[in-house]
């Protein structure tokens, strides 16, 4: 074939679903979470992995193994595999799930011991790299490869010189150093006998931390302690530029540093565990309890409780606007298919205003102030069994998720606004003022809603306001920024709005560390199960609460 023959074109743009089409997850994930719970990732859930990995890094240095990242990665992945076998062989039958369990479990079912050596996680540095490296670095326990040592960057991750790092590594070593595994099988490449793993699991398993006070205290100190003469840095969030509509910097400055904030957040968690034990297992309970937490006993608790309740409110707002988005996309696709072309601006406006049809059906020409007043009086024109004012905030959020309509989103927003009006406090005020690069803060949204309401805007007006400001404008900007990944659900082409039907639907909330709170604090012995499997704050936890909130 010669160069000058005509050729059919091939796409350069790759169609992708896009995980955060309105830029709302990022407010939680990248703005609020690093402020509210600095250093803890969603899957950094088992406290003993903090000591295990610290111990591994220490062993690696002590044995003077090759100082390059590839060798360290292999070393860690092999040791994680063996540790996973030991956890699953734990004689205490705790049911703990190690990193890489999906690979280790089938092997143990299909193979008789001794078990071969292997790797359970493919990515570099295994579970350490995925879940624990970043927290350990943030806690000041690990110096990551590339950290400058004088004029030279270090080539592999190493422990910092802090006493806390030394203590945690020594504590884990002390727990396992008498095992046959550590003494004879640690670097061996031979298959691992079952009794060696059981022996290792008996003292090394994830479940053992609450029973090893010295190691537990060392891990506790890693999360909640600071090094002498080292001032705790504030939690870091990227600046959004010169913008008054963002309070993240104020939060970072006022919280007293990442360690203080972490301590307050965990202590606040213990207060809601005491108030509603189901929060340790149930996400909805967790969200509702953070919204309706007990009366604060100190300024510090008041501040942090305000932070977390603002996060919950922000997520209700996200699901409310997600309902508007979801129905707008569905209706737009349907309308354009029937027209055989995209929508003009006026047609788009008309489409959004028609979203009042529900469910639940709301009169599009009713003023938003009137609808809000009806909601406040629990006197809604909806079906008899639909009483938004009687729902908890979490029930309200789940209702709009299930209903998945713009009208339900509007109702959820109005009800959220009513309840938010009753909130105050510095923490609440600051955290509701946090925005992302794409979306304004909840406080700005509410201000806008109030202004509309005062101007006599109708339901249809507000639906268009929501669609135009938080859906239409934002999604296109985000999708353009992601090109050549094509994540558009709609875009303006030649003055007409064209909809795309790939991957259309709701987008999820970002994780808010429910499992991390629950498992880390349990591992640290801050709460424990009673005989009925309920959660009870332990004496250790009570002492921690006292220490933090007084």
């Amino acid at each position, binding site marked *: 074939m010669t160069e000058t023959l*005509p*050729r059919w074109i091939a796409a350069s743009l790759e169609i992708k679903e896009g995980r955060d089409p309105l830029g709302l997850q990022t407010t939680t994930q990248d703005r609020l979470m690093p402020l509210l719970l600095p250093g803890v990732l969603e899957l950094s859930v088992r406290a003993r992995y903090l000591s295990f990995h610290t111990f591994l890094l220490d062993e690696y240095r002590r044995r003077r193994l090759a100082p390059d990242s590839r060798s360290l990665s292999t070393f860690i992945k092999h040791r994680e595999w063996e540790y996973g076998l030991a956890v699953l062989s734990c004689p205490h039958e705790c049911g703990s799930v190690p990193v890489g369990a999906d690979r280790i479990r089938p092997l143990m079912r299909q193979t008789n011991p001794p078990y071969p050596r292997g790797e359970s996680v493919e990515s570099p540095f295994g579970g350490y790299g995925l879940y624990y490296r970043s927290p350990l670095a943030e806690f000041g326990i690990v110096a990551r490869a590339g950290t400058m040592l004088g004029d030279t960057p270090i080539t592999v991750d190493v422990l910092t010189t802090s006493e806390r790092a030394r203590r945690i590594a020594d504590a884990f070593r002390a727990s396992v150093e008498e095992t046959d595994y550590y003494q*004879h099988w640690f670097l061996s490449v031979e298959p691992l006998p079952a009794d060696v793993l059981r022996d290792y699991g008996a003292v090394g398993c994830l479940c053992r931390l609450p029973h090893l006070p010295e190691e537990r205290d060392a891990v506790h100190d890693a999360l909640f302690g600071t090094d002498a003469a080292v001032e705790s840095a504030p939690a870091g969030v990227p600046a959004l530029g010169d913008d008054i509509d963002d309070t993240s910097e104020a939060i970072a400055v006022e919280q007293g540093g990442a360690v203080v904030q972490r301590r307050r957040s965990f202590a606040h968690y213990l207060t809601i565990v005491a108030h509603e034990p189901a929060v340790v297992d149930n996400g909805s309970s967790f969200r509702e309890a953070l919204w309706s937490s007990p009366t604060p006993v100190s300024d510090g608790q008041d501040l942090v409780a305000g932070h977390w309740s603002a996060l919950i409110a922000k997520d209700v707002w996200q699901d409310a606007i997600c309902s508007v988005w979801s129905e707008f996309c569905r209706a737009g696709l349907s309308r354009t298919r029937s027209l055989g072309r995209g929508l003009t601006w006026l047609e788009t406006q008309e489409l959004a205003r028609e979203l009042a049809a529900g469910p639940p059906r709301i009169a599009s020409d009713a003023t938003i102030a009137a609808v809000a007043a009806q909601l406040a009086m629990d006197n809604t024109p909806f079906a008899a069994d639909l009483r938004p004012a009687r729902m908890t905030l979490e029930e309200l959020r789940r209702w709009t998720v299930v209903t998945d309509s713009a009208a339900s989103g509007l109702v959820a927003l109005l009800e959220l606004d009513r309840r938010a009006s009753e909130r105050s406090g510095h923490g609440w005020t600051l955290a509701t003022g946090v925005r992302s690069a794409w979306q304004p803060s909840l406080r700005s949204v509410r201000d806008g809603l109030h202004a509309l309401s005062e101007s006599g805007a109708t339901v249809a007006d507000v639906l268009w306001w929501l669609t135009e400001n938080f859906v239409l404008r934002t999604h296109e900007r985000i999708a353009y*920024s992601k090109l050549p990944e094509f994540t558009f659900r709609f875009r303006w*082409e*030649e003055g007409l709005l064209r909809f795309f039907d790939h991957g259309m639907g709701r987008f999820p909330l970002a994780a808010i560390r429910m499992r991390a709170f629950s498992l880390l604090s349990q591992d640290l012995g801050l709460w424990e199960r009673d005989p009925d499997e309920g959660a009870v704050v332990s004496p250790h936890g009570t002492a921690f609460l006292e220490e933090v909130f007084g």
Partner: protein
Amino acid sequence: MTTYSQDDSAGAARIQPVTELFRSNVVAFWATTYNIDLALFNEFLLGRLGEPPLNIAILADADRVAATLARIPSEKVDQVALINSRWLLRSGPSGNGRFHPKSYLAVTPTKATLLVGSGNLSASGLDEGREVFTAFVSGTPDGDDAIDVWRTWIRRLVQRVDDTRLAERFAELESRLPKPVSPRITGTARVLHNLDEALADQLVATVMAESARVDDLIVTAPFFDRNGIALTSLIERLSPQRVTLYMTTATSVDGVQLATALQTSGADVKVWLYEPDRFTHAKVIGAIAGSRGWILSGSANLSRAALTMTAGTGNVELSVITPASPSDVWAAFLPPDAATRELSFADLLTLEYATEADGDAPSVRLLSAVAIADGRIDVVCEPTLQAGWRLGDLATHSALVVERNATRTVGPLPGRLVQIESGDGTPLSNRIVVDDPKGLDAALRVRARTGGDQPIELHSGDLDTAVGKALVYLHRNLIMDVTEAAPGGAGSGGVGADESDSVTDDDLWERLEREQLGRDPRANNYGRLLGQPAGLGVSEPILELLEAMRDRAPTQDRSALASTSDSVLRLLRLQAEEDDDADDDDEDQDTADAPRRRWKPETRVRVRARNVLRRWAAAQNDPRLIWIDHLAPAVNFSMVATTFARLWLAVADDPDRCELRATDLADLWFAWMRPFVGSGRGDGWLDQLDLKDDAVRGRLPASLAETVAALSWLTVRRRDRDTTIAWQPVLSAALDRALLEPTEEAARFVSHVVHARVERSRVEEDLLQCIEFIDDDLWCERTRLELALDALRLDVGSTGQAVSVRLHIRGVNNPLTDPRLPQLIVATRRYRRCDGLATFSDDEGWRLVVTTGQPVAYLAAGHGQELVESAVVEQGALEAMAAASGILSDLFARAAVA
């Protein structure tokens, strides 16, 4: 370089217009299109073109542009912010028809690429739709001819538009177009327009000139004239035996009329449906006569306005006629992602002719609007200004008056999208985007690349040297040091595509930094080097680099040379020989031409250039560099290797002509090689790659290993022990990584440099000797470092003893649980070619004796310890253990050790 993707099902090369046209080194971009997706261009495609100076002009159909602008609501007028400010949008001249040609010309400093085809400047036209394009590249016979025809054609269009700003840009474009270097070859692809002669006439004339009889006429197009007259006319004129029609159910034609016309044509007619049955916008006509064939492809539909009329009466169209084999003609009709299914005549009857509704023409034509100094706006309209008219920008308005023969607003008007309105605000005219002369001028003349236009160490005076030019080229086109990278182009701010899940270790700061790096327009260039399929010759960026370093105008067809050579060294050597010949000619002819610039030795330039290259070398292991592309350091390395090869030739030609000396080159080459390939201990950048992966290997520059061999040989050929020892692990690692290929071309290259014949075998032998050099001190030191021992000494006893080698070591606490011991034993055995050896710990006091066929004897430190023996050491057991990083305790009975 043309970017193609290969579709397995069809076996046909495909073209990616977005990748092909929109590159960061483009200096001019001109397009003709029927419609334009303004948002796509402003928000994405424009950003890919990088920074000014950038000459962009787009001619589009006036009615389509007007319809698009008319739909823009006041809330979205920001869509037009860059139009007629950073780039020029004008209506193409269309007479009574439509302005319908689809052509795209992208000009870089070294070449021009022209695409002529069916796709509009929109997402479907350039990326997602079923479209066909023919690509032409300057420097080739077809390319030079096509670009010349296009240039002549567009010049005539510019004249018809009669717009001085457009004409000014066209003049600038002409100055940037590469001069044709290839002689015209008849019988190849030609660009056809219809300004003078209808396309059908030109097609028929071309075919009939070659053959009086046509076997097959094959067609596909989305739009016919209502009754299929253009097709019927073609059939009548060519009298084919068979007619084949490819279509979709969306094909626009009166099916009854078409079926009737085809049935009465006398030809054997077959109709095929594309499956999946989706809109197919390509327009292709094929004719086959015996063993010959022709393809007409481009913008022209199967309508009279497109095919049988000239521009003015009909549409303005642009096509390409390409001679092709019959199989190529048939292949041109098959989209790679589609199959075909035969239809009956009855199926044709369901086709409907779709009319495109013309909106009501406004009573006033607003022809131009230009911002003047005080924020007021000059307009030109038809008819001329009448009382009460005003100019509105969808938000505010200002009355229009005639002032000094110009029609202008009485006050400033901030908006960019304007229309003439009546006194009560009723729109009277089409909308137009106001020209911003200052912005347009700046876009042509300002070079505002953030982060500096040259490496910080260099001074302006350095830029006239070959080394300086090379460094500036590298700096402007590649990210050699990420600390210099700057946030880049338009339309890509904020949180980017690579949002990582909060559960990963990829924290926010890293992602933000990654995004900023990704927006650096230079990042796009890595795809050009890495995306080129094997065998397409030396890549364009390397050619550009060499061009930047050359001190004379190219005298040979560079593209042809590049396309036939996949060896950088060969290209360089041929260039050098060409320069030598030219020097001879210069001397012979003693011409009065301007004197050739000589490279000057300049100590300060030398120091600064060394500093730049050292800094860049150190920056290659910055982990952020791989965010651009995981092979980005390899690209940088290969470009620097090419630079070094060129500089070696300069040094060889005349040491006084080069700012860097041979010792500099040797020294700097080590500074680049050492971090790149490492020392065999996993400390090189290459160690992060799996070079066994064909996908990785296939993306690395093909001749890199050959260049590395040549440059390394030049550095180590006069070896002393220190140089050898320093280079040894580096060369060894390079060899292991298949990055050391002493080819015949490498030998020819170094021969040219050293002015003496050097055989390939000698290059290979010298490199291997360097790699294999060893003595006991070196072995001990290397092994000590490798195994992180505190000390290692080797004593060799007399041969014939069971244990002939003694090792004295420090830094091992327990030899039975330390994985370094088996590795040390195996390494010693291999080095000394012995079996039995004794190891003594000079600091801990233990002893260990190993002999194959015997148990390992171990005496722990301290008084009263008993000798412990393992199981018998079988042949190969220690080697296997060492390979698996095992420990000696595995050989001992566990109870005994415990």
